[in-house]
């Protein structure tokens, strides 16, 4: 028999679910490096992935307060005097506006415009959206990103920052979009990390502060006590440490051969219950 063509599956279902999905407003955008799947079996697994080493990390953005879609519409065309026929989907870019303007976040987004990411979305009902790739775990939606927004308030607008996501293949997205219920409150477990440095308040004072690298916010009061208590596991180059609440500083004696204390990686910090920061490198 000669080789024959077999049609790919094109079943046509028009029924509805006994348990309809209530598609709610988007609350969270999570990116992973392209090809890296999100761990979402539990909140703890998701939080662990948000603090993993770069490459296998999940990047949680601050809370989303608005979503707008641009494009992604079916295109039709005709040949001669024939009927209109479907001819693909127009390119689509979604704009996710975050809760407030942050100059450092815009900078980081801009630095990564050439990077390929996979995107997951979480709505207010803690439904997770991704792509059904035939496995039990959702794949991310391939996208690239760029920033937009206003640095300062205008006459009618507040300062704002949006991350725009450009769908690499919007038709593939529409064909394979799927949703799973997370079963936990995602916002409690999704983190983006802020790089921090340890800065001595005065030379040889032995008093150190935890300072955010961008914007130089003093994070000592938030993290100092936890860092001191877990100094054995989360700090390098330290022989003893305590948190001085009055001075809002870590009192540190250096270990042998060390010239400065150093924070360990975000994964180690998270293991000690210190979330949301990593050492600036």
């Amino acid at each position, binding site marked *: 028999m000669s080789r024959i063509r077999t049609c790919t599956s094109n079943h046509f279902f028009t029924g509805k679910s006994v348990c309809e999905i209530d598609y709610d407003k988007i609350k969270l955008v999570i990116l992973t490096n392209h090809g890296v799947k999100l761990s979402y079996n539990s909140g703890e697994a998701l939080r662990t992935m948000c603090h993993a080493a770069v490459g296998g990390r999940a990047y949680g953005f601050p809370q989303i307060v608005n979503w707008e879609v641009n494009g992604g519409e079916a295109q039709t065309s005709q040949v001669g005097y024939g009927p209109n026929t479907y001819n693909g989907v127009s390119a689509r870019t979604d704009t996710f506006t975050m809760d407030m303007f942050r100059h450092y976040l815009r900078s980081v987004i801009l630095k990564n415009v050439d990077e390929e990411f996979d995107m997951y979305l979480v709505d207010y009902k803690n439904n997770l959206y991704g792509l059904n790739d035939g496995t039990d775990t959702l794949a991310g939606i391939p996208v690239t990103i760029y920033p937009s927004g206003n640095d300062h308030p205008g006459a009618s607008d507040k300062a704002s920052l949006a991350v725009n996501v450009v769908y690499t293949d919007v038709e593939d997205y529409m064909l394979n979009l799927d949703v799973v219920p997370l079963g936990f409150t995602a916002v409690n477990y999704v983190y983006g990390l802020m790089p921090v440095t340890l800065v001595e308040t005065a030379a040889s004072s*032995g008093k150190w502060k935890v300072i955010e690298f961008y914007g130089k916010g003093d994070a000592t009061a938030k993290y100092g006590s936890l860092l*001191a*208590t*877990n*100094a*054995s596991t989360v*700090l390098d180059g*330290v*022989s*003893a*440490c*305590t948190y001085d609440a009055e001075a809002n500083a870590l*009192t540190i*004696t250096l*270990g*042998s051969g060390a010239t400065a204390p150093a924070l360990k990686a975000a994964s180690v910090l998270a293991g000690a219950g210190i979330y949301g920061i990593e050492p600036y490198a």
Partner: protein
Amino acid sequence: MIYEGVTFVVDEVKKMSEKDFVKTMLNVFWLDRDKETRRKMLADVYRRITGKK
């Protein structure tokens, strides 16, 4: 090891002699107590960590 609110990194302390340990820490921690009390506390910490008597 946490002793009176101060976390001592065991591996680092073990690298030090008792004299160096006490000298390094004496005027850093528990400054609300007199020097002799601090010296005794540090000696106690060192012995607990190193097992030396």
